[in-house]
């Protein structure tokens, strides 16, 4: 039995990786609360660890876990007696072996919409999504977001209480059509992805968070197949993950896009991104995520940095700016302009941003590069950028740039 344990752990990990949102979604409907749903799944996992080593892994492990968890949920409701009346979402025989396809999709969407409810604070949405839907532990979350475990635990408890108090569970008909739901979900996924992209401190990329965000984006774009922004976000993340392994060198120092080894980019993720972007275009989307995906597609498919389609990228940035005037977008557009028309044109674009981006390290890092291309002194800007970033990988890169000025 001892040698069975590692493979059993692998089976459970694999099943939960694929099916967790489906199982927890069904349990959430059945139990009427996130805590009860998570508890029921835990009980089922304990039961699996107790019986699978002797009985063998069932043919359909996900269905086995769901049925076992449903049994525990039902027992729990019986034990609580009167409290059962407070669970309004019990809609069908909990022992039904398999849910209908529509029920599965509804369950998953309800779970995601609840965790990302716009009435919750942003950090609560993110923590809940990672914990409930993806199964991160409090300890893992605390490490990922650089905070104390008690802080993270409180964040989760508060978010769950808000859901209960305000009855945000979407049990009523028409919950899918509520406005703002999709936007909030996509924002949470985007935030998780970016948290993985550039950590505020420590190592540059948390690849696991990015991969998890990509997995969720896949699920959301499957559940909302006619939403171009969901496909756009999926494409954007797929392109990001495709390049993730080359964003830092062996010492963990940032490698700029222009210096990355393009032969090491992940071809399967590039293909996935191109399909998702095509879907978004077919649906007629030109929202923020679709436009960012268009830009990422230009970069990801360009033969080299110099041979990038800067015209197309500039046009996409123009469209993005038209959606809402963001100084960070304007900064990125200035880089595209500098590649298309030269460093002087780039500096002209940067000038009006100096005040509003005065505390943003990438403004100075960008201006330093342009000054350097013109043979002017970039040192003060590199040093200001260095002082403004807490990211170790970026700091190391900037120190390297400064050191290279001396040689």
């Amino acid at each position: 039995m001892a040698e069975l344990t590692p493979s059993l752990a692998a089976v459970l990990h694999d099943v939960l990786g694929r099916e967790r949102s489906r199982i927890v979604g069904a349990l959430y409907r059945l139990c009427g609360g996130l805590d009860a749903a998570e508890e029921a799944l835990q009980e089922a996992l304990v039961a699996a660890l107790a019986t699978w080593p002797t009985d063998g892994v069932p043919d359909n492990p996900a269905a086995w876990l769901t049925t076992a968890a449903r049994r525990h949920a039902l027992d729990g409701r019986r034990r609580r007696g009167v409290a059962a009346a407070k669970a309004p979402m019990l809609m069908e025989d909990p022992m039904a072996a398999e849910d209908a396809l529509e029920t599965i999709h509804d369950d998953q969407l309800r779970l995601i919409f609840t965790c990302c409810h716009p009435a919750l604070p942003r950090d609560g949405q993110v923590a809940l999504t990672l914990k409930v839907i993806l199964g991160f532990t409090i300890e893992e979350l605390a490490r990922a977001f650089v905070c104390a475990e008690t802080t993270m635990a409180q964040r989760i408890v508060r978010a769950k209480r808000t859901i209960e108090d305000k009855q945000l569970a979407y049990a009523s008909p028409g919950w899918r059509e509520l406005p703002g739901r999709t936007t909030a979900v996509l924002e949470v996924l985007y935030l998780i992805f970016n948290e993985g992209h550039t950590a505020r401190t420590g190592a540059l990329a948390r690849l696991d968070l990015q991969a998890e965000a990509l997995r969720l984006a896949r699920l959301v774009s499957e559940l909302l197949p006619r939403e171009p922004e969901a496909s756009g976000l999926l494409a954007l993340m797929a392109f990001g993950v495709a390049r993730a392994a080359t964003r830092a060198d062996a010492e963990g120092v940032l490698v700029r896009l222009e210096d990355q080894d393009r032969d090491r980019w992940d071809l399967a993720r590039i293909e996935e991104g191109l399909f998702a972007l095509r879907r978004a275009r077919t649906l007629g989307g030109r929202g923020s995520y679709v436009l960012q995906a268009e830009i990422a597609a230009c970069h990801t498919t360009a033969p080299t940095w110099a041979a990038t389609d800067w015209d197309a990228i500039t046009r996409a940035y123009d469209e993005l700016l038209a959606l809402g005037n963001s100084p960070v977008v304007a900064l990125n557009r200035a880089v595209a302009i500098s590649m298309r028309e030269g460093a002087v044109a780039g500096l002209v674009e940067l000038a009006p941003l100096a005040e509003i981006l005065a505390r943003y390290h990438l403004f100075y890092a960008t201006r330093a590069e342009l000054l350097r291309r013109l043979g002017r002194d970039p040192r003060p800007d590199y040093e200001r950028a260095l002082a403004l970033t807490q990211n170790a990988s970026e700091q190391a890169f900037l120190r390297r740039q400064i050191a290279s000025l001396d040689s």
Partner: protein
Amino acid sequence: MTAMTDYLLMITERPAAATRAAVTERAATRAAVRTHLAATGALVDGGELHPSAESKRVRRTGEALAVEAGPFDATLESYYLVRTPDLAAATALAKALPLHPDDVVDVRPVMKGAIKADKLDQPGKVFAFAVLGAAADEPTWIQQMDRIDLATHDKLAIPGGCGGVRLEAPTTGRRVAFDASKARVVDGPFLECKEVIGGLFFLRMPSLEDATRWASASPFVALGGLEIRELWRS
């Protein structure tokens, strides 16, 4: 009025792209093929499949169920259902596709059935199931497909079903092969592979595992074989 017939154009899967340039070019080609066919007005439905490396083949040998993981040789990369007056017109469509040297397109008349064109607008994953038959000669292969048809013709009205087509025998179709200069028609196709596609149908399923489980218990596998491929949303 000319009677119109449905034909299935099946583009053979190419080896996995090994470079970024190849991935990019392939994506552009796929989009161009779809656009080209849509512009002809003949396109009824079309789709592109995830790589066969991510797929399963399920068949039964005697009592034993065999589930084989891809990649597979000479299998589908994409399908296009077109409506034209005759085989010559469908073959002409295939020859005019914006494809590249070494690409192969099989053109087969549809015996019966229809595919739901809006299947990807519904939530969830959609899987394509290619019905495979293995036989020494065409009459035997046709008998095998008839048996499968008889056992399954009322079985596809299940939840998540998105329709499907049964194809005529391989010799009723044409194979179009592209080389450096032009597309040319090869006689056949023949029963040259050990398994030949006799139909294509679609189901919405939560995962490849669910699809494989469903397939394993189906008469398709009891009497022949199925290749299960996820459909890209594009």
